[in-house]
């Protein structure tokens, strides 16, 4: 029994999961204190033929950050730096997508007949634009050896502006149900959940079934040694940034479909920071090397869980950031290496004392 518990606590995912449960527990306490059933927060029900409930909200609203976190994890692992352009790239891709669909300079489309190009062209265009941005970042980082943060700073500041230019400085509205599907519902299930799940599944299968995951980690741990061992480090880093851009493109489509418009000023605003935080909350080192994709995904949903908790608790908007900060501090401190080491030491000391007592 004790052994099993020990094994469980030593799992890499143990702490991230504990953290997300901790956040959810806050809701249980709150609900019980307010004479609601303790499972109120976890209740999933069908309303108006659609899946509904707080947990569904978390999974739904957290999708964009979860998708971004996939790309961010790979980038952090391979290059030991972060891609801070993902939020802007999201906005750029969303603008490009809506621009292609509505036609340049058109600010509002209300039916599918008014589409300038078929919707699929817009979607593929957005993904392509994401890849292009990723390739640009990747080329700067891997082939020109520019610091990742500096390299991605270019698109961080330019992406949103290019998006505005593409949309002729307007918010492009595509008030068409077909376009709203990607951020709305597919049957009773919110589509973003499905998209995020597919992205996670495809990435983890590729990482598990091919050696790519191992290559990325080895490049992240020691670039030079990997090269000497026969890996093309530059190419691998380039690929990671490309994938990160693609993820940003997908997230951009989801975000713009949610509001059936391309609001380039607001889509993906500050989301790069959420994505980086997700990677960190997942127990990954931002210095690169070993990574745990599942951890990052849990991290992403932890962030959304905190937001949803704030809504559930009815914390006023002005105070919410403070509460969020406190929760994040607690989570990060729990996972901090010195604290972990201290816990281990204490445990060892306890064990040795017990041994001594037993021998006496």
């Amino acid at each position, binding site marked *: 029994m004790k052994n099993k518990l020990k094994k469980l606590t030593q799992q890499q995912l143990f702490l991230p999961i504990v953290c997300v449960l901790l956040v959810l527990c806050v809701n249980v306490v709150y609900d019980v204190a307010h004479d609601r059933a303790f499972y109120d927060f976890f209740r999933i029900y069908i309303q108006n033929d659609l899946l509904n409930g707080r947990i569904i*909200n978390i999974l739904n609203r957290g999708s964009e950050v979860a998708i971004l976190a996939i790309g961010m994890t790979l980038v952090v692992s391979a290059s030991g730096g972060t891609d801070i352009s993902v939020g802007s790239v999201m906005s750029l891709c969303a603008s490009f997508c809506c621009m292609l669909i509505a036609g340049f300079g058109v600010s509002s489309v209300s039916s599918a007949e008014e589409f300038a190009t078929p919707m699929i062209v817009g979607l593929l265009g957005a993904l392509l634009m994401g890849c292009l941005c990723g*390739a640009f970042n990747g080329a700067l980082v891997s*082939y020109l050896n520019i610091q990742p943060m500096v390299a991605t700073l270019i698109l961080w500041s330019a992406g949103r502006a290019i998006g505005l230019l593409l949309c002729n400085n307007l*918010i492009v509205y595509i008030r068409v149900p077909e376009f709203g599907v990607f951020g709305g519902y597919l049957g009773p299930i919110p589509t973003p959940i499905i998209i995020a799940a597919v992205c996670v599944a495809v990435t983890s299968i590729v990482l598990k079934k091919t050696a790519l995951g191992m290559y990325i980690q080895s490049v992240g741990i020691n670039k030079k040694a990997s090269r000497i061992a026969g890996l093309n480090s530059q190419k691998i880093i380039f690929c990671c940034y490309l994938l990160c851009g693609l993820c940003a493109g997908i997230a951009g489509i989801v975000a713009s479909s949610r*509001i059936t418009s391309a*609001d380039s000023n*607001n889509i993906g605003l500050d989301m790069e920071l959420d994505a980086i935080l997700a990677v960190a909350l997942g127990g990954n080192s931002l210095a690169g090397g070993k990574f745990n994709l599942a951890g990052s995904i849990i991290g992403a949903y932890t962030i959304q869980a905190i937001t949803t908790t704030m809504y*559930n608790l009815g914390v*006023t*908007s002005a105070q919410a950031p403070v509460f969020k900060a406190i929760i994040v501090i607690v989570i990060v401190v729990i996972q901090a290496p010195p604290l972990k080491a201290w816990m281990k030491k204490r445990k060892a000391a306890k064990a040795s004392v017990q041994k001594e007592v037993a021998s006496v």
Partner: protein
Amino acid sequence: MKKFLALILALSMAFALVACGGNSGNTTGNNTNTGNTGNTGSSDNTGSSDGELIRVGFAQVGHESDWRAASTNSAYEVFSEENGYDLSFVDSDNDSANQIAAVRNFIQQGMDYIIIDPIVSTGWDAVLTECEEAGIPVFIIDRTVDDSDKYVSWVGSDFLVEGQACGEWLKAYAEDKGIEELNILVIEGSVGASATIGRTDGFKEIADREGWTILDSQSGDFTEAGGQEVMESYCQSYAGQFNVVICQNDNEASGAMTAMDNAGVTYGVGGDVILVSFDANKPYVEMVMQGKINANFECNPMAAPTVAELIQMMENGETPEKEIYVTESWFVAEDNVTEITVNGEVQPVIHVTQEVLDARPY
């Protein structure tokens, strides 16, 4: 492979450079343009004193929304050459450094009047002092300047009155419909924004007086995504408990409508929930006409006509007041309430018809 990648990189960088080049070329083009018109204007001045154009410099925030575009267009219309003005317009692209540079440029060009819609509310004292030393009167419109009073007047919306008007209309509407208990959910704007503070306080004042219940008040950040997320949460926390939703701008209202559709809550005329919005952009005034939104309270972007009046006052040697509010209209979907009393002042409520909608400039 490497060469290929290098090629792609080179191409993409070239693309970026071209993009930047095109952009800056454009702005410089604009600048020289305005400079030119300015010059011809002054040469006209020296030529004939009776046809003298008043030179006005306008440092606009940017072009982020339809509201902003309406504000810009209104300035172009009012300060036209036919009306005796020569307007130099600068779009600051939401960058306050650009804006301050534009104002300094206006001083150098020797404008007669300068209009600023300040992107940020602080850091203005130095440049406004320069304006004062150059003897150029400055008008502030829309947003406010907190750290300096070296301007003639501020012209803008009274958000507090907007919030109060919303409350007074709701009171009259509820009385007419015989709704006795109002349980209200508010979706606020960005935390700390003057529009958020004014609209929240104004509405709360009436709500407290009438003893209404405000169930919750959360920020939707003035965005559609924000409004959607907050409303989604409201529909779960307060299912069946609320009958009024106040959104502090149109985008939030749009998001709230999507969330209520998903949750199966009906709103608008004949719905379970009274939906109120602020700003009154044209597409949303149309929604009022269709009965999707019960009432929409305008935030008037047309400060330019008022500023023009003030300029004429100053030309005649009068001193305008420090704070001037633009007139605003309240749009509703039904004709049961025709006027409301806000702060003791009777104001008309406009029932939106096709004619009203067609007459809307933005």
